[in-house]
């Protein structure tokens, strides 16, 4: 069984990789298997974790959970065109909950915490310890403070980017370009690491060429 499993995994891996040559029947077959398995995997996982784990197990001691179950069932009414509009109720619940949650969470994490982290001492490693920081810390902190400020100025479109404001915005776009470049490099390397993992599987686990 183990042997068959390895061959199956290799067959599927090579099927997806074959797309690098061109779109072909093998790729389409493995892609279809992936779509079916993904949908099924998430359905099974959420059924047992959320529906069974949260509702079914606790429903007798927490009757309020029935409201969630009813809203969930109402969601399925979207499949019945005549009364499909009722599915807007659970959808509105999801949208309302997400909005309420994100309003607070993003305000806290993306705005307040980021501003707090940007208010840095420029000429010392710690507040109150004078001019004792190394050059790297001073330059780094200056880059963070001016970079964040100028990046924000670039995103401010209510005022024309001219004069000192325009020059600050220009610095902002440079910083943002560096960010995009670094994020791009990071993403490529993480994908490459995944690809190396798959090649390693093919060469060592499947073919046994690397011991």
């Amino acid at each position: 069984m183990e042997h068959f499993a390895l061959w199956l995994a290799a067959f599927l891996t090579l099927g997806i990789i074959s797309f690098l040559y061109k779109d072909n029947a093998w790729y389409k077959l493995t892609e279809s298997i992936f779509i079916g398995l993904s949908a099924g995997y998430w359905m099974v996982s959420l059924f047992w974790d959320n529906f069974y784990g949260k509702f079914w197990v606790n429903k007798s001691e927490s009757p309020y959970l029935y409201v969630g179950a009813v809203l969930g069932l109402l969601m399925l009414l979207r499949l019945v065109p005549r009364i499909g509009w009722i599915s807007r109720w659970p959808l509105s619940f999801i949208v309302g909950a997400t909005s309420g949650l994100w309003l607070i969470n993003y305000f806290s994490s993306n705005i307040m915490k980021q501003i707090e982290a940007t208010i840095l001492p420029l000429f010392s490693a710690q507040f109150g310890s004078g001019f004792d920081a190394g050059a790297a810390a001073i330059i780094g902190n200056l880059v963070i403070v001016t970079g964040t400020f100028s990046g924000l100025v670039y995103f401010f479109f209510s005022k024309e980017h001219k004069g000192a404001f325009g020059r600050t915005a220009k610095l902002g776009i440079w910083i943002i370009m560096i960010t995009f470049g670094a994020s791009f490099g990071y993403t490529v390397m993480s994908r490459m690491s995944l690809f190396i993992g798959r090649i390693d599987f093919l060469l060592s686990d499947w073919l046994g060429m690397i011991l």
Partner: protein
Amino acid sequence: MRREIPLLITGIVGVGFVIQYFIPHAPFSYMSDWFSDWFSIIGACAIVLGALNLMKISIQKVISRKKDWGYAAVIIASFLLIVIIGMVEGKDFRVPGTNFDWLYRYMYIPLSATMFAILAFFVASASYRAFRARNFEATLLLIAAFFVMMGRVPVGDIITGFMPEGWRLSNLASWVMNYPQAAGQRAIMIGIGLGIVSTSLRVILGIERSHIGGGE
């Protein structure tokens, strides 16, 4: 009725989540727990809706013998295979050694990991077009990506091995990630945060209504 009730639900739930943050005591703390549990349960039903929709489209494709209907049949078969096995195995479906775990390890992981891995090649081909140093901004993008990519592989440090440790490519890559990259990322995050806060407010106050769709 068809528009007012959804707007009311959105407003009450949204305001409820905001209040429970500022007043983390009963009854608002209960409200937060209740809403979170309901959210999870509705999420489980929503994925069923999505899966059933996928099945509906695939079955229609097979019945009407549309182009590539065979692949739609494969989608249905693989979906049913994992769902039946997962349901039969019960709540311990993830335990190592189960049939579901076998499907996950030898089919789902190879497929998903390879699918994401080949994106590296598409990103690389996109970079060929984007990275041509046509102006100063594109050159900055190129240099930052070069430092980060070379700094993440051993050859980067081998090439710069003759330099003091702090100036080697791995350290320069870390510096780029920790300072200029962090600064730009922070500006973007603050912008995203402001956008999300304003959109959430519009949704809760009923100004933004696209989620309840058109018609009556």
